[in-house]
């Protein structure tokens, strides 16, 4: 396998809220596998995707397996870059109150700039 290409990196752009469908979990599975293969991987949250980061949620209450707990294990998969779109937070009246620590809030311009530093972008 031709790994360790320095100019290659994956951005996963999350646009869906966590519990109605599997989009967030499907993106997470990709992130964990890319991390396990030592591929540079970053997570971006935009639109309703920002709900995946909010503190205090509990899928168990509605019988959804809560994959959000797995976000706390990112360090073991070498996933360090987690970005959230400030504009999307503002639109939804949300404060920067996240359930993991390494989230970076970026304004619209910086969010777009950071996203487009990645060679591959998949959106879920």
């Amino acid at each position, binding site marked *: 396998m031709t790994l360790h290409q320095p100019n290659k990196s994956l951005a996963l752009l999350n646009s869906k809220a966590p519990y109605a469908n599997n989009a967030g979990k499907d993106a997470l599975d990709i992130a964990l596998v890319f991390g396990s293969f030592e591929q540079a991987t970053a997570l971006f949250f935009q639109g309703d995707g920002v709900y995946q980061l909010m503190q205090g949620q509990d899928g168990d209450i509605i019988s959804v397996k*809560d*994959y959000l*707990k*797995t976000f706390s294990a990112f360090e073991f*998969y070498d996933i360090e870059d987690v970005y959230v779109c400030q504009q999307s937070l503002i639109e939804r009246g949300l404060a920067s109150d996240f359930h993991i620590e390494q989230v970076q809030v970026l304004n619209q311009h910086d969010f777009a700039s950071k996203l487009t530093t990645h060679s591959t972008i998949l959106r879920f």
Partner: protein
Amino acid sequence: MAISVEFNGKQVATDKQGYLLDHTQWQEDVAIIMAEHDNLVLTSDHWEVINFVRQFYLTYNTSPAIRALTKAMKAEFGEEKTSSRYLFRLFPDGPAKQATKYAGLPKPKRCL
């Protein structure tokens, strides 16, 4: 492999590969009996890994892939006890798969 495992006179349901269907039914005896099926006697070294994998699952809602497992264990047990050679010697069928099974956790996904 039976579709249940018996311990202390009780039947606990498993999938075809012998993984518990309900991880809350797990007790240490389950691991011992599963290991016996595989002709393996669990030592304290095995238990360190089994307990660690179980704790990882309960904390993060996912079983760790091998690289994540070694990385997470390193902080607690040091370099020597977390090399993949060391872990494969303990669990010849693959540490992620086998320790996960003995820890009563769901079978790791095939595609991962």
